[in-house]
């Protein structure tokens, strides 16, 4: 059972298994992530990092075990409650996942629109967050004409605009040059210092060193003991 005494934990993962067909993607993973923590999940490609993050935002369901996010038991959460879980999370995808037919503004605003925020406040917040990530100038641009680094900055803006309590980032610097990667690292650090919990899956050693925080290693779906 999950340790209910861990009142400071924002994410609790207890004896989680994930299988795709007959193949184990995660085996007996147990993790406890306190509030305001910065957790880096490292490991080679195919180790199960992305799968672990997907379990946290319910893009996938666990095969066995339990996951608690901010007190919500994801095994028991109803379909209707999933959007409320996701609004607590800011998700950054390796492939950015921006909507190509919408402008930078609309891509970021969609989070607030989905939350039912008033239009005036949406304008104000989106502009403010785009200023923070240095994309205010490109507010009316469409994602396909932006560079990879710029797209990822928009993705970061979208992830943080709803004031999430946790940021989940899947290889946030994976396809970026070092300058763009540094900008993203600095942004993530900035949001972490504001009190947001960071969970980052990466195999980028530079990111691991620069961002700081607790590091856990995944290998073939199993958590490796710390060195």
């Amino acid at each position, binding site marked *: 059972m999950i340790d209910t005494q861990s009142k400071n934990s924002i994410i609790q993962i207890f004896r989680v298994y994930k299988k795709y067909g007959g193949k184990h993607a995660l085996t007996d993973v147990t993790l406890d992530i306190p509030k305001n923590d910065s957790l880096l999940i490292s490991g080679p490609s195919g180790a199960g990092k992305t799968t672990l993050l997907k379990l946290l*935002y319910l*893009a996938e369901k666990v095969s066995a075990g339990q996951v608690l996010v901010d007190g919500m038991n994801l095994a028991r959460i109803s*379909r*209707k409650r999933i*959007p*409320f879980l*996701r*609004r607590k*999370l800011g*998700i950054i995808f390796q492939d950015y*996942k*921006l*909507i190509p*037919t*919408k402008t930078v503004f609309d891509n970021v605003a*969609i*989070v607030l*629109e*989905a*939350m039912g925020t008033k*239009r005036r406040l949406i304008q104000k917040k989106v502009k403010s967050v785009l200023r923070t990530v240095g994309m205010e100038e490109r507010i009316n641009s469409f994602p396909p004409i932006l560079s990879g680094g710029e797209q990822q900055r928009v993705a970061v803006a*979208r992830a943080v605009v*709803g004031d999430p309590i946790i940021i989940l980032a899947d290889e946030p610097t994976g396809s970026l040059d070092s300058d763009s990667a540094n900008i993203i690292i600095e942004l993530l650090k900035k949001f972490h210092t504001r009190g947001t919990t960071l969970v980052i899956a990466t195999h980028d050693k530079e990111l691991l060193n620069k961002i700081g925080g607790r590091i856990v290693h995944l290998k073939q779906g199993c958590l490796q003991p710390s060195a």
Partner: protein
Amino acid sequence: MILHYKRAIQDILDHKFLNAVTIITIAISILIVSAFALFFVNASDIISSWQKGVRIMAYLRPNIPHADIGALKLKIQDFYGVQNVKFISKEEGLQMLKDQMKRQPSLFVDLKENPLPDAFAIRMIPTSKNREKIEGLTTRLEALPEINDVEYGHRWLARFTNIFNLFKLTGFALGGLFSVAAVFIVANTIRLVLYTRREELEIMRLVGAADSFIKAPFYIEGIIQGALGGTIGLAVLFVTFLIVSSNVQQSFALDFFTVRFLSIKVYGTIIFCSTCVGWLGCYLSLKQFLKS
């Protein structure tokens, strides 16, 4: 809500061709269904105006004493549904016939004796002017020994009513069929739009959009398609009606009734139904899509 409307209108503009096809299909379906409705409304008017003029003629056997005719008249007057009974002697009958056939006086020149029988002209009370009651009275009259023959002048009206009812049934069946077809066409259009926007909708879900937030613009889109299709269909029918009705009125000199368009109530019902068709099509495709 304004946001949902904006997104719905943007979607329609982004997929102009698909939406135009759907709206036109709904319009054609509505046009066919309402053309049937228009026919029924006017055919019903014709039938009821004919029924209002229904008169039963009861012809007497020859040589009925005049003294018995008064009693017989009172007897018939007491039958249920009878408003008034008028005795028409054979002489009066012949005079009426001559008046009606003024242009062919030669027909009566060689007439040696009056071939017409005495008769009663019976009018019914308005609430009894339906086929069943008229036929019931006819049967009772035929059973009277003094009556030789009963002519229900609009007997063919019964046959017409039967054909009309058959048409009505066909109309309902066709209307139902077209509505179902329209629902599936709307469902397919929305499904195609959903598939082209699959990735976008998935992203919206991942950033916390609830199903209702995703669905709302599509429902609005379906409702707009239905309402627009219905309005266009009725507008086309109205223009066609204006052109055709004046010709019909002139050609057939229909002075006993006026050809009329659908009432506001029927008009509203049709628009409401076409809006429901749009909504239902949307509901079906969204239900299936969001499940996947």
